[in-house]
């Protein structure tokens, strides 16, 4: 129940929808990446300095780690196709020859596949999630305000304030 409760709490908090959506997206990127490397560290760094929901990021990363584990062969195949795609080889070669870039493991087939898939999905997911969170907040706030028992759980107080302002 704890993760769901955390999600509900985040969804009904006073955080802006982009903070939750971006946390999910960062979680997706980190979760899909196969192992710890400079790329992972870079996204974790982003999570810390950008004002996103850390709880949602952790949940998202855990969930996508499972997805990544299942999709590993597919991601590896995609990564391989991209890394061995002739027109892109000069680009990869140039990156490969930049100091410290080898520690990003960009030339790893799963890392490249996961990064590519998550970056492609990032923007549409961001838009969709934002919309969904907004819709959710509108409908659920009305519903929870209607019943005093649910209201007494106090998980929607912050949002209530936000709604109240409107």
């Amino acid at each position, binding site marked *: 129940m704890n993760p769901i409760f955390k999600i509900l709490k985040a969804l009904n908090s006073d955080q802006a929808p982009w903070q939750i959506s971006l946390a999910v997206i960062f979680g997706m990127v980190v979760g899909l990446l196969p192992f710890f490397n400079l790329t992972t560290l870079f996204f974790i760094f982003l999570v*810390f*300095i950008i004002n996103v929901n850390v709880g949602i990021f952790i949940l998202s990363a855990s969930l996508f780690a499972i997805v990544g584990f299942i999709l590993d062969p597919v991601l590896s195949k995609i990564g391989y196709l991209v890394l061995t795609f002739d027109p892109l080889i000069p680009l990869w*070669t140039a990156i490969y020859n930049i*100091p410290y870039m080898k*520690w990003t493991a960009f030339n790893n087939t799963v890392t490249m596949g996961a990064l590519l898939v998550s970056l492609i999905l990032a923007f549409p997911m961001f838009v969709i999630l934002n919309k969904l969170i907004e819709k959710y907040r509108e409908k659920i706030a009305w519903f929870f305000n209607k019943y005093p028992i649910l209201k007494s759980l106090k998980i929607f107080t912050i949002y209530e304030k936000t709604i109240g302002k409107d």
Partner: protein
Amino acid sequence: MKIFRLWGLILFLVLLAVFFVFFKFFFDGLVKIAIEKGGSVALQRPVEIKDFKSNLLSFEFAIDKLQIADDDDPMKNVVSIDKIQFNMNQQKLLAWKKYHIENMLFENISFFTKREKPAKIKKAEKKETVAKKEEKKLDFESFTQKLNIPTAKQILQKEQLKTIQVAKESEQQLKQIKEKWEKIAKEDFPKEKQGIKQLQKEIKQLEKEAKKLKKPQDYKKFAEKVKKIKKEIDQKIKRIKQLKKELEQDKKVVTSVYPKIKQASKEDLQKLKQKYSLGLEGGLNLAETIFGKEIKGYLEKAIEYYKIASPYLKRGEEKQKEIEEKKFRMAGKYVEFKEYHPYPDYVVQNAKLSLNAFDSKISGNLKDYSDNQKIYGKPLKISFNSQNGKMFKTFDLNSVFDRTTNTAKDNINLKITELKAKDYDIQNYIKFTNNKINVIGNIKILNEKDLKGYLKLVFSNTTPVVLKQDNAGKILKKLFSDINKFYVGVDLGGEINSPDIKIKSDLDEMLSKRLRGMVKEKVAKLNADLQKTIDSQKQKYLKEFEKYQKDFKKYESYISNYESQYKKLLKEATKKLGTKKYEKQIKEKLKEKLKFNF
């Protein structure tokens, strides 16, 4: 709503610092586990280290007491190294992920040492052992039997002589001939004698009758009698001639047996000499029996280590190929791109080695190890050199593992002088002590496959000590006395996966020569005995033959005598009883009678 949070940056840095402290705290332990696990998998035998220490600021690392256990004996290490120390080039590692070791130290490398605690040998780690070849053993029984040459009497008891066989085959025929002539001599010859006397009598009688001839009718009767007696003599002569012919034929038969017996006895002697005096051909193959197992064992071990190590000499070259060939698995694979400034991933520029071998410390040097020699441009060189060791005068091992071109060329040179070797024994019968060996060898491996080389161990100062005083021991003592210098050579060929190891030595040749000398006397005596025994057999038959010859001569003289007597009788009969003479005599008598009547 703020987009960035300052406290997040601080928290990130704090967490990063905590992570590094944690990493530093556990790093050494984790690396220790990684070395042990990875090493055990790679080498297929338990690998243990006592301690791993690192300094992440200076990039210095140290491994304490590395032990690689023998998978057959948990209380033995195949290799153990007291200390390994190295420092890595930080810039190359951090910026380019290149493991470049400038200086390395391997202290006290030892082989086949005893362990303090038994190694945990997992069943899976244990390699499938090929069915052990049956250990070569000297067959001392047959060895001594070779020197226990039987006597001529013993040989003749179990061997079939052709001389006897030939004699027995002719025996029946000779017997028939003998009986036939004995019968003739007994029955016919007296008759002939009697017959001659009778004929002589008859001729004399007719001579008397001839003087009394008066009438033509008497003459006619006389002439008929003369004719008859002449005919009779003629028949006798013919009969004698026939006997003579038969005697000649039988003589021929008997005479033909003689050379047959002579030839058979010659063949018998030759055959038996060959059978009982040349049993030492082929030698004893002692060198292979004594040293073969050990030398082959060392060479096979060296080849096994070479096979384990050689992939690391060109791992960098094969990285790209690997990604295309291997299937996709968890954690993916790395696609390698062209480097603007190519450099191998792993390099050890210089390593100092100290080796514990032959109860001495041998210092060595490893130069220019890299996982891609084509890029690095230098071959790997490993050398060990030492002088005046506890067990040798000089030790030089120089090897070059060259992968700088498409043809992999490896060359190993070994030279050890005055190596005090352990005692070698042959099945507790004889022991070689005080061995001093000069070893010289060269092994070349082309393309990590084709093997060619030699190893020569020259033993000097060796003292053979006989341990058992039985029959074989006594023979061995005599055989090995004064042998204190010999060589054992090893020819190496074939392929790395199926090496062809041949062992040769002048020891076998020397021993064979000595053995031949030892048995020469015995063989000479045997030959003389055989000659004597076979000759006595031959003589027995030849005496018989001589008797035949003698008899034949006797028969021959009888027959000749009878023939000449018959011929003489015929002549006499013709001369004395010539019918014309008596015809004339009658005619004259008749004329005189007619004169008286007229």
